[in-house]
């Protein structure tokens, strides 16, 4: 008998369907994956099963848990959640009460489950945390630790079903893998049913026996995991699977190219001393980093979150300044924000988040034209020409220049962000996680675009990322960074085949298995 049965579930917001006619049956003990891109309705499905849909949602259809209809009474539904369903949400940052010690929050879950046997310490141990963490506040824990606390809370009632909604997408690679392994291990040990919701086909494949693929609120197909990978019936599923693998691009021959940027002993320290505080050693976000970038090269910088890679990118781009050390571009030395105005056009930066990178009150044309202030000699006609050239080079139409940012999708915005980075015809483009905020299906296209632009304009790329597969595909050379230092460097092939440093090894180990 199925533990969870969904029949013809439709969820509307203000009359518009966000999920239409979904029917699923999830067997006891099964590990079931729901995969889809943003807006596919996958999270709504989880909320519907747990009775946590927002007030504005109008749901029709039938959901049965353990053969019984979900209770309509709020108290009974809450009791059901408290005793039989455990839930792990996406954002460990905000999903815990910031004002309450985590031990108390777990204890509360134990209380609500009327479970007298289990103890907070035992639960913490089960999720791999020392019991001393119980007295901490959420902000005193790392993202991975917080997510473990969430899992401990979900386990408190010894539930029949655990629902994990994108539990790892806010975590870095290594932590992500550990949390996934933990979930798998616990499900095995406790013989729990799992519903795992993700946009990442590989994570789903690594964890689940069966997968439902959702697209724009509709079920595409429900298939056993192996079938998805080997013989995806639907074209959309195929596309999702394809997006997980990237064909390596041809390496560039850089032997006769000259030096573009050299970084020497760059350190960025943040003072932690306040007006009255005792002396504390400064925080070394970037610690004595030196490397060269050759013209035409694609250099990648990888590392876990907080390793200092973004700080380094901002220093190189001139947004932040090094505490010590110098950088030289085209024999012009600088330290960061003191990058001379006439040189600023040579370096540009593409940001991670396509939604925050455009001023909603300016037209795309005005935003794209902003960097042209660095080239005051340009005639108005030339400027116009530059804009058209830039927007067309990223595959968009010149008529879009008069539109506003909210009229574009995430993928289009990232193209526009790239266009803005190109408008001054820079030589070095720093790309900070250029695709990680995009839906998987458009990542490939954006990477293709980047590759094409590089060869077309002879650009040099410095790519900041935690995504080893993307790096392996794009980069000529990879540097691995940990705690502000570069710990290992080399071509992706040699580096990934034979990692020396423990971090590189950990990164490699955390990679989810390829699908094919």
């Amino acid at each position, binding site marked *: 008998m199925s533990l969870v049965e969904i029949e013809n579930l439709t969820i509307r917001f203000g009359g518009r369907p966000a999920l239409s006619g979904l029917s699923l049956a999830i067997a006891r003990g099964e590990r079931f994956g729901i995969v889809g891109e943003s807006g596919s309705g996958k999270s709504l499905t989880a909320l519907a099963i747990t009775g946590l849909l927002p007030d504005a949602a109008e749901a029709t259809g039938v959901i049965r848990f353990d053969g019984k209809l979900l209770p309509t009474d709020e108290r009974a539904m809450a009791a059901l959640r408290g005793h039989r369903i455990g839930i792990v949400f996406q954002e460990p940052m905000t999903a815990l009460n910031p004002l309450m010690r985590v031990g108390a929050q777990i204890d509360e879950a134990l209380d609500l489950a009327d479970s007298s046997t289990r103890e907070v310490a035992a639960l913490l141990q089960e999720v791999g945390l020392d019991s001393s963490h119980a007295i901490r506040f959420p902000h005193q824990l790392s993202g991975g630790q917080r997510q473990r606390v969430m899992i401990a809370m979900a386990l408190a009632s010894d539930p029949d079903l655990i629902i994990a909604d994108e539990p790892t997408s806010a975590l870095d690679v290594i932590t992500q893998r550990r949390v996934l392994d933990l979930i798998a291990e616990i499900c095995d040990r406790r013989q729990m049913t799992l519903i795992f919701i993700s946009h990442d086909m590989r994570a789903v494949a690594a964890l689940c026996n069966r997968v439902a693929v959702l697209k724009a609120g509709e079920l595409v197909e429900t298939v056993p995991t192996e079938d998805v990978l080997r013989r995806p019936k639907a074209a959309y599923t195929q596309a999702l699977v394809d997006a997980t693998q990237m064909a390596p691009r041809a390496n560039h021959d850089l032997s006769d190219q000259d030096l573009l940027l050299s970084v020497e002993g760059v350190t960025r320290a943040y003072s932690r001393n306040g007006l009255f505080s005792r002396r504390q050693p400064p925080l070394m976000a970037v610690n004595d980093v030196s490397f060269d970038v050759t013209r035409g090269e694609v250099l990648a910088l990888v590392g876990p979150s907080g390793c200092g890679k973004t700080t380094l990118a901002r220093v190189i781009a001139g*947004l932040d300044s090094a505490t010590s050390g110098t950088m030289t571009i085209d024999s012009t030395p600088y330290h960061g924000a003191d990058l001379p105005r006439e040189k600023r056009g040579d370096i540009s*930066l593409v*940001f991670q988040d396509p939604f925050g990178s455009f001023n909603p009150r300016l037209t795309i044309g005005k935003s794209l034209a902003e*960097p042209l202030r660095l080239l005051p000699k340009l005639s108005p006609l030339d400027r116009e020409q530059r804009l058209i050239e830039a927007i067309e080079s990223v595959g968009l139409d010149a008529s879009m220049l008069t539109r506003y940012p909210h009229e574009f999708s995430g993928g289009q915005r990232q193209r526009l962000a790239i266009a803005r980075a190109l408008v001054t015809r820079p030589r070095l483009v720093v790309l900070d996680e250029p695709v990680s905020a995009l839906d998987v299906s458009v990542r490939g296209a954006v990477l293709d675009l980047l590759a094409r632009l590089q060869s077309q304009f002879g650009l040099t790329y410095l790519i900041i990322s935690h995504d080893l597969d993307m790096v392996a595909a794009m980069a000529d050379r990879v540097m691995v960074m940990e705690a502000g230092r570069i710990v290992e460097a080399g071509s992706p092939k040699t580096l990934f085949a034979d990692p020396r440093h423990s971090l590189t090894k950990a990164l490699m180990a955390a990679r989810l298995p390829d699908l094919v």
Partner: protein
Amino acid sequence: MRTAWMRHPGLMLGLAASFAFALLGLLSLVWTPYPIGDISIARRFAVPSPDHWLGTDQLGRDMLSLIMSGTLTSFTVGATAIIIGAGIGVPLGLAAAIYGGPVEWLVLRFSDLAFAFPSIIIAILIATLMGPGAANAVIAIGIFNIPVFAQVARGGALTISTLDYVAAARLAGLSRPAIALRHLLPNIASLIIVQATIQLSVGILAEAGFSYIGLGTQPPETSLGLMLRDAQNLFLIHPWLSIAPGLAIAVIVIALNIAGDGLRDILDPRLRRQEVGRVAG
């Protein structure tokens, strides 16, 4: 956008009532049924009639004319105080947000200082300095408004300056003031507009309070607060003289508040209300 406006009956009502009163006030600049300086003891305390729709006051002046003119004064005081408050507070808040460091520290201290002087004390001191009058109500309320707007502007600007387009503008070589003008200000404008409607209602109430204790508007000018003050001794004999301006104040303030709430919902549903500015009464 249009549908959003239509879906908000409260906003429409609030805006309509606010504008109606504002227009009534503006109309008094060019026309009132009777001149407000037209005193005639013989016809005082007249009840509402076709000649005097709202009756006459203790000096025989036409109540409707007084309410029109008083509304104008109340709005003018509130609005001028907002211009002072926003005109100084917003640049200060923006400066604090974009420069940080000592500038921010100074602005925060200045905010503390301005908050530490209760506006009524400022009003008393200014009244003694320059003589009582609407101008000193404007200044006292204006000074109170400065830190309110500074906080709103700083908070909004800090949120926005973490967004990538601000970093992009810095890469494009824009100076900090230019970034503040081009990127921050337009994006916190809705915050400021919403706060302004709240401060307008606060200002109108505060003007009434100041006039009530004799620090605000002085005759022969009139304001709704002054009318209340003049009428309060007569409350047991001629209650209408108090009820009319009192109702006008309440309706205007409620209308502005409803409009402010609605505007916030429409302009940016995520905006946090700044009730800070309301604790001035």
